[in-house]
């Protein structure tokens, strides 16, 4: 076996953790998509060399703790209100790269008003929208995005449209708003998907630099703990059930 000192030589280095990620142990469950998307956001900030110019806004949800993991100035926001918070940051500090990082319970339920209006005003921000069809932090309750028939702790017999309405494709709504410039739906369950997702995040941050308005990236995600499935099974379930309904691809790219 090669000597470890030989392996870690600079010229042999093919990959390293982004400097924008802290050494804090992530609180996300094994298999959770947050870890991957955090890494992608960190890499984009590092590659664009905008650590000094980036301000993140992370509202209530599992990712409310993002400030522990991302080495940038971050504001923790109340449930659903990150787009309003980010609106003020972007307007008062127009030279900064401002992004929100929101879950589906946050963005598509309690914060519907704030996201629609921030996007409609075309605030110059990036919105990263993690959609796992469930409230992860509070223990797997039904979200507006939960699929018909999907069992959750508040729809234990599966979501019934008569009782709880239909799953909300909020990204399709967002794409109609003239304030948005780039609206896309991505995933992060395979190496190819991760690479495409990173490209989308990069484009979104570049759009902010070019003052193009709101860029909105939905990442269809898994929640192994909430779905009560192993990480591998979660990915399979997502491909089989989530992706046919939440189809991947760009909805708008101007």
């Amino acid at each position, binding site marked *: 076996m090669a000597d470890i000192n030989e392996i870690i030589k600079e010229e042999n280095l093919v990959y390293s953790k982004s400097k924008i990620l802290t050494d804090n142990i992530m609180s996300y469950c094994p298999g959770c998509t947050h870890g991957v998307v955090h890494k992608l956001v960190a890499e984009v900030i590092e590659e664009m060399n905008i650590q000094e110019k*980036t301000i993140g806004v992370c509202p209530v949800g599992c990712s409310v703790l993002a*400030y522990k993991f991302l080495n940038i100035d971050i504001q923790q926001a109340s449930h659903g209100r990150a787009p309003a918070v980010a609106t003020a940051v972007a307007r008062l500090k127009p030279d900064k790269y401002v992004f929100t990082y929101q879950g589906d319970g946050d963005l598509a339920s309690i914060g519907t*008003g704030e996201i629609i209006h921030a996007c409609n005003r075309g605030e110059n921000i990036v919105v990263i929208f993690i959609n796992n069809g469930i409230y992860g932090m509070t223990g797997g309750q039904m979200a507006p995005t939960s699929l018909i028939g999907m069992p959750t702790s508040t729809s234990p017999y599966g979501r019934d449209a008569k009782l709880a309405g239909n799953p909300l494709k909020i990204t399709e709504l967002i794409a109609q708003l003239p304030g948005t410039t780039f609206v896309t739906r991505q995933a992060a369950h395979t190496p190819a998907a991760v690479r495409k997702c990173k490209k989308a995040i990069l484009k979104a941050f570049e759009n902010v630099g070019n003052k193009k308005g709101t860029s909105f990236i939905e990442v269809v995600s898994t929640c192994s703990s909430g779905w009560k499935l192993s990480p591998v099974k979660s990915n399979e379930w997502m491909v089989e059930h989530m992706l046919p309904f939440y189809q991947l691809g760009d909805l708008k790219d101007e």
Partner: protein
Amino acid sequence: MADYRLMKGNEVIAEAAIRYGCDGYFGYPITPQSEIMETLMVRKPWEETGMVVLQAESEIAAINMVYGGAACGKKVMTSSSSPGISLKQEGISYIAGAELPCVIVNVVRGGPGLGTIQPGQSDYFQAVKGGGHGDYRLIVIAPASVQEMNDFVGLGFDLAFKYRNPVMILSDGVIGQMMEKVQLGEFKPRWTDEEIIKMNGSWATTGKTSDRERNIITSLELDSSRQEKFNHKLIEKYKTISEKEVRFEKIACDDAEYLFIAYGSSSRICQKAIEIAREKGIKVGLLRPITLFPFPTKQIQAMLKQVKGILTVEMSAGQMIEDVRLAVEGKVPVEHFGRLGGMIPSPNEAVQALEDQIIKGK
């Protein structure tokens, strides 16, 4: 040269904000305070000072915009009236919990519910005792004139940044809507980004530079022992504020045998009531709390050597009276006189109440 104008209280809030170097105003229309945002939109301060003015989609969005701006170390504010202030309470609690400076103007109308669009003072409890969830205090200042609507914008920002605490200007529909002579302040330039970093860079999210750790604005602490420690830190701050920032005014108190205690527009009514009462030979004075938190408890106690009874006059069912009674500790009678639902007490009614409830009631 002094700049005198005849202006509405609400208009003056807008003008004072521009002149004091406010960075951002975020509001939502509601009677009787809509002139604040209307005046700003007419004045277009973004062309003059670069101040951001934005009509938000809701009261909730507006207060969260204030959170975002304040977290960047900017001088930001919002205004509303009672039902709108209720909607902002979650955001206010977060602002207090994250220790952010800002100014919130409440031009109070009668409640509860949608209530009336006429003046009220029925938000005293909400402003002074909390309003949102958790153990926190706002610094609450109560203007009694259009001039104070002007002066308290600057005072509000000064106190907010001194203590990193939200400040509420608790006005009412009378002060907001009435016109009076006002001396406007000098123009103060907005803080530059360098000044903000110099003054607030140790905590505000101004962009992480290589010479410092990242700044995090949060009101979340999952470790209970650390949250308790933080709660004690807040309590200490409120204690310091209570010791150092009490403001009040005394009128005709030197020989007073009876005392009105009233704030805001009720205190103006009491000034006329004092004239009427003194013509009748009743020696009554007025103690006007200017800060409602911190409350002038010691100043009220100091009056107990000379007064035989106290009447609080409020446009509410009796809210501030609880703090007066806590100060008085039963040593002299304390009674309440108020009109409700947007009705304004007349000076004669106040004198009658003093005679009936305090002098004859004794």
